[in-house]
């Protein structure tokens, strides 16, 4: 019989996903693991993880990983990559990590063209700390620090990080994907794979933002998450390739 779907060997069979039931963050981690397996780079891969829900990947993936201080994930990740240029560094960050406290590191890592791949998981909230407002929180969205809904007057508009990174000249590849249905999952996997190949084959910087939603903190039933992402979140954060200057097809 032909095997058409399996768990990647780069996920530890004894490990477990630490994500909340119904959260699609785990899908992002699984896609990364699949790409690592398919490109046959398990021993070369390092996964720096931002403080936040990203650390739930730690005991699940079966390749190297490192915890980072909040916002410094690109800095520590590129420090590792600089001394192991033959390695493949896939940096997993939340929106608070990359867009708030680590904005400077995000921009300068991209601008210097450090040969790393940044996977930014945009869940529009500080998930791990219990649902505070993030720079990506939607206008009107309630959080524990915007209890009446986020207002432009207080906090400005949501920051579109992928578009912001794409304004820089150096980044080779910038895209945004989503994982709320099978079609989008498959597309997003291709984005991740291309981004990682650009790091490996062109020694260049690549960036993929992936939209998820925090079921736990939004307080919406998990069954409604896909339609919430489709009808609300993706209206603000459009998916697709924003910039592609690579020579890969």
């Amino acid at each position, binding site marked *: 019989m032909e095997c058409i779907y399996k768990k990647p060997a780069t996920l530890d069979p004894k490990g477990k996903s630490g994500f909340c039931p119904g959260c699609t963050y785990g899908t992002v981690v699984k896609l990364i693991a699949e790409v690592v397996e398919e490109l046959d780079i398990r021993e070369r891969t390092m996964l720096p993880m931002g403080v936040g829900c990203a650390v739930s990947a730690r005991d699940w993936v079966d390749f190297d990983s490192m915890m980072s201080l909040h916002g410094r994930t690109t800095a520590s990740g590129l*420090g590792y990559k600089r001394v192991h240029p033959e*390695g493949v560094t896939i940096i997993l960050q939340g929106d608070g990590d990359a867009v708030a406290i680590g904005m400077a590191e995000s921009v300068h890592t991209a601008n210097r063209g450090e040969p790393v791949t940044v996977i930014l998981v945009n869940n529009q909230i500080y998930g791990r700390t219990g649902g505070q407002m993030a720079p990506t929180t939607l206008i009107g969205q309630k959080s524990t620090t915007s209890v009446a809904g986020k207002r432009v007057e207080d906090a400005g508009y949501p920051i579109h990080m992928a578009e912001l990174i794409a304004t820089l000249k150096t980044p080779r590849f910038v895209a945004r994907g989503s994982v709320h249905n099978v079609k989008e999952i498959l597309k997003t996997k291709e984005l991740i794979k291309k981004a990682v190949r650009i790091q490996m084959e062109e020694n260049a910087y690549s960036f993929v933002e992936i939209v998820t939603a925090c079921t736990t903190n939004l307080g919406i039933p998990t069954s409604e998450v896909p339609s919430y992402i489709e009808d609300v979140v993706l209206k603000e954060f459009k998916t697709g390739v924003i910039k592609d200057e690579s020579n890969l097809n």
Partner: protein
Amino acid sequence: MAKKVLMQGNVAAAEAAIRAGLNLYAGYPITPQTTLTEYMSWRLPEAGGQFIQAECEPAAINMVLGASVGGARALTATSGPGFSLMQEGISAMCGGKLPGVIINVMRSGAGGGSIVSSQADYNLAVKSAGHGGLRSLVLAPYSVQEFVDMVYNSFDLAEKYNNPVVILADGMIGQMHEPVIIPEFKTGTDARLKARGPGEKGRPKRVFKDTVSVPALVEKEYDAACAKYDLWQKEAVEYEDMLTEDAEYLIIAFGSAARISSGAVKALREEGVKIGMVRPKTLYPFPKERIKAIDKNQVKAVLTVEMARPVMFYDDVALYLDRDIPHYSCTRAGGVIITPDEVEEAVRKIL
């Protein structure tokens, strides 16, 4: 024997780091450290290492952290405000048991402060490596040669104890020129780097954590850290005695305050005053046994000299000094450099 060359402290220290097998330097310009970063920017790539002008000090220390996770010999250098910004990263390196070297070319003043030398970061460097209460190994050079030697050996020390090393220099040591012997390139310094690279197929994964999350396990980590610090107290303490055998008066000072005080000691000796100096080279571990050994039957008074107000170093000396020995202090602060005459004057008052 190797030839002496005239070099600036910061530049000589940078060259010493490179010869110690430095793989990566990340730093952000700040007076009086800047000449070190400038020199590194061209010299380290020439020697085959990675130089990064970081976007800020938190980025710099975390680049060092990441490089150290990868087994590299990594260094950053900064001064006061930048050293404050690096505390979180140094804390994480202590927690993650990562070697690495941080040079603080101390300047003076709070906030932006001033760019002139002081010793006001003593407590910040010695009492706790950022939050969490772990400790860095802290070394204090008093000459350009000692700056070179400490930097040259600091990576071995950091790797021996899996711990960051802070070199607490200051603007005077960093910016003055002195004749120095620059040591040869070390060989075989990349074993750790090689062991943490991609490696053979199917090897177990490596996970770097700067902390564990269960309190009982964290407490165990602290107990292990305490055992390590006790070991340092046994085997890593360094200090220098100058004319102490028959001394009835003692100066205790470190770094440039000790250097300046050595002039006063010599002048007073010429007049027949039986004075000597004890100079800690390691500030953490602190040479407490040496201080405890100061004998009240021989020593009539002790003078601690430091460039900080309120005193910091004095307090640590006081903790271990026999209570029956009168203990005085002589300080300048804010970037005002203490002079040998002032030290001499302070000694005369207690004779």
